[in-house]
């Protein structure tokens, strides 16, 4: 159940957008498709919705084969990055659209629209036009519109991509809470790893048309399957011959069994954390290593710019499982 | 407001990722019907002109074009259209500038005035000009039946082209860029020459091409104004009509082909220009 994707391929001319995608998206969960722009994640979402057709492969939605079914018959809720608000209709009319297409009785449509507008906190805006709403409000309206048809799955394509940082964060929390209330199988596309890690139950990392890894946010963060996943989910630096997160490096002023040693050549304080650059005295690996420590650690260790320090991975540091 | 505004290169709307689909069965049927109608109405009749002109052989073509009366009509048409286009380049750009950058009482009225030549029937345009610049001119200027009448008529009917192609581009032009130039020490004149005019150049050229194409093909506004004096005020379109009325369709087609080639050249130029602008981003 949920969404079953089998052997999906998609090319745009010479460009391979998706290659042999096999994926099971569990029912009732919030799943994020995460990856860099142009990696194929939006294409996959559009294929699930029927807005794009795959060159080969099958799509099954809640146990029903949807492969050849046109978008208007799939009963899929789709939310677009740029809202796709119907500009000539009021907020209430936008939300009612799918219900009117389904020829629901008037009073039922009204009741449902009121309910949904309440759910997305837009009840006092029902007679406004989309142009009179802020970006965040428009996206909430789009969400209500998609939910109105009681979709078997809800698909969101970079839903917060066009919003500013603060609104993004609010909507993200709100989406999580909404999903806990509605429990519809939800798939959303994002290129923002923080958003994906924070909101989703499970994560699918897609790069260059292939699935890199599938798992819970913890799985992916702690046990990345590849250097790509490790580096995509957060900042990384090279210590010795491995990729590591800057906060997973142990730094001391005393010689010990270290992976590298060198002087602190750069010191940037950002709030409570201090970002250091250590230039190794190893002629074979002269590239600076990024290290992050808290202000308190730096004080305790009596670190200063120009100090000679020794570096090694912390015990239990994230690492690519090989 | 834009009437008949030629789609200016550079004024192209910013596109969102445009998703284009290949034809479905019903849209292919629609395309088939649309293409058939377009062919029956436009393409086949125009192709027949080309066929007709080559039908008589190279000799008919050459004889027609070397006929003194026809040659003089073509010369007059091209010369006047060129002069008018040059004036439009200057005046059209100036008018667009004033409409975009200046604001004063009655500016919206001017917007309507600009479009009058597009909307007015050409025969009426001729009559209109005749009433101010004809025998009963209140100004005492009578250009009727002279070369100047051709010039005046073309000036009237081609007025909107450059204005309407330049205007949207000028509106989109970032003030920031001019302010940046000024902050770098450029004078108003240098900014105009080095920053503004180069950005407007494709639109001006496009407007000029449209204006020239319209100029050489003008007929209606000249009928009453120019007197159609052979060798003096007779333009190419009138020559074609004379040939048609004399039943000499081959000769009519020969002159028509020349006009068609120029019209096509203008369209190709426009396409190339919008491609250039699109690349510039």
């Amino acid at each position: 159940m949920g969404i079953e994707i089998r052997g999906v391929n998609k090319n745009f001319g010479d460009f391979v957008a998706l290659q042999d995608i096999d994926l099971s998206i569990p029912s009732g969960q919030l799943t994020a498709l995460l990856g860099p722009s142009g990696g194929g994640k939006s294409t996959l979402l559009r294929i699930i919705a029927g807005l794009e057709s795959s060159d080969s492969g099958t799509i099954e939605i809640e146990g029903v084969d949807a492969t050849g079914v046109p978008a208007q018959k799939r009963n899929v809720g789709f939310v677009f990055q740029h809202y796709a608000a119907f500009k000539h209709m009021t907020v209430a009319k936008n939300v009612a659209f799918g219900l009117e297409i389904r020829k629901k009785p008037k009073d039922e449509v009204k009741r449902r629209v009121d309910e949904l507008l309440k759910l997305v906190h837009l009840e006092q805006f029902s007679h406004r036009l989309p142009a009179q709403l802020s970006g965040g409000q428009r996206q909430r309206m789009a969400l209500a519109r998609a939910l109105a048809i009681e979709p078997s799955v809800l698909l969101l394509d970079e839903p917060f991509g066009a919003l500013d940082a603060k609104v993004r964060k609010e909507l993200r929390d709100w989406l999580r809470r909404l999903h806990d209330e509605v429990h519809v199988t939800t798939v959303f596309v994002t290129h923002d790893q923080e958003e994906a890690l924070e909101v989703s139950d499970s994560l699918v990392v897609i790069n260059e048309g292939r699935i890199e890894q599938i798992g819970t946010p913890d799985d992916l963060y702690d046990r990345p399957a590849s250097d790509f996943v490790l580096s995509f989910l957060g900042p990384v630096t090279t210590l010795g011959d491995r990729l590591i997160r800057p906060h997973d490096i142990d730094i001391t002023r005393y010689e010990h069994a270290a992976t590298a040693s060198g002087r602190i050549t750069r010191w940037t304080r950002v709030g409570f954390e201090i970002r250091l650059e250590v230039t190794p005295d190893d002629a074979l690996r002269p590239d600076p290593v990024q290290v992050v420590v808290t202000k308190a650690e730096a004080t305790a260790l009596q670190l200063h710019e120009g100090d000679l320090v020794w570096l090694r991975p912390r015990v239990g540091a994230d690492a690519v499982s090989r | 407001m834009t009437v008949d505004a030629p789609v200016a290169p550079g004024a192209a709307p910013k596109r969102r990722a445009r998703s284009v689909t290949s034809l479905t069965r019903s849209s292919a049927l629609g395309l088939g019907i649309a293409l058939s109608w377009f062919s029956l109405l436009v393409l086949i009749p125009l192709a027949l002109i080309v066929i007709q002109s080559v039908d008589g052989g190279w000799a008919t073509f050459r004889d027609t074009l070397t006929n003194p009366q026809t040659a003089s009509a073509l010369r007059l048409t091209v010369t006047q259209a060129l002069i008018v286009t040059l004036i439009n380049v200057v005046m059209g750009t100036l008018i667009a500038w004033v409409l975009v950058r200046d604001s004063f009482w009655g500016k919206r009225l001017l917007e309507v005035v600009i479009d009058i030549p597009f909307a007015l029937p050409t025969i009426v345009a001729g009559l209109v000009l005749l009433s101010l610049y004809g025998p009963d001119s209140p100004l005492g200027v009578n250009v009727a039946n002279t070369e100047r009448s051709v010039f005046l008529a073309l000036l009237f009917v081609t007025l909107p082209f450059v204005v309407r192609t330049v205007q949207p581009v000028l509106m989109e032009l970032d003030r920031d860029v001019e302010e940046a130039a000024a902050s770098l020490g450029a004078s108003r004149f240098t900014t105009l020459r080095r920053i503004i005019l180069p950005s407007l150049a494709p639109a001006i050229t496009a407007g000029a091409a449209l204006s020239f194409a319209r100029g050489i093909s003008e007929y209606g506004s000249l009928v009453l104004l120019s007197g159609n004096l052979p060798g003096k005020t007779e333009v190419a379109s009138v020559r074609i009509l004379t040939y048609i009325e004399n039943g000499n369709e081959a000769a009519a087609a020969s002159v028509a082909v020349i006009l068609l080639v120029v019209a096509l050249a203008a369209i190709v130029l426009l396409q190339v220009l919008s491609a250039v602008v699109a690349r510039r981003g």
Partner: protein
Amino acid sequence: MASRAAQPRTPGTYVRRLIVVGYLFLLIVWPVSLVVVKTFDGGLGNIQGALSDPEVVFALQLTVYVAVWAVAINTVFGVGISLLLVRYEFPGRRVLSALIDLPLSVSPVVVGLALLLAYAGTDGLFGPTLESAGLQVAFAPAGIILATAFVSLPLVIRELVPVLQEIGTEQEQAAKSLGAGPVQTFRRITLPSIKWALVYGVVLSLARSLGEFGAVKVISGNIAQQTQTATLVVEEKYQDFEQGTAYATSFLLALIAVAALVVVTILRPKDDTDGD
């Protein structure tokens, strides 16, 4: 568009303004207003004279009949071809899009000639076949409709294409995902979004159709009370020294043209209220 503060006014501002206003006054405003003056020289006499002349009345009726047909054809064709050009990919799309503009730069006389070569009753390509089927095109209203449709063909398309490109396909896709079929999507989503552009294109086509002269002159045969349209009447009356009638008829045509412009200027929303 960035909001821009009014530019500081310099003497140059006033010089430019003066030149532009003067130029437009001498070239357009004054001459056009003279037609009005001459029409009402002797009160309403000229208008009444024109409207009681059967030739003029017939011509005006024929003109409206022809214009309505031509505009209807161009509207249907224009909407269809605009959707095809913007929303679909097919071989030859760019060439077609370029050729669509051709009628705007072809001389009206050439248009008339081209249609004669195709539809003349005796020696046209399709003429004899159509005639034996009972349809006379050249020197008949059908031919006038064709000529008028030809010259005003691109006007609707040129208005629609940029708007269709601008609105993109997201709203249509959203409608589709909400269960709307192609016809419902067009009627409820696409049409309302292109409504103003369509009205605008239709009004332009109408103005152009009412005013076509050269192409109609060639294809119609210009037979009074049979194939003579309003613009042809203006020419004939002027040359027959019935200048009052010519001015009155011109005034009526100009009135329609200017009224169309003004109506559209007022109707059209000043700016796109698109907030994103």
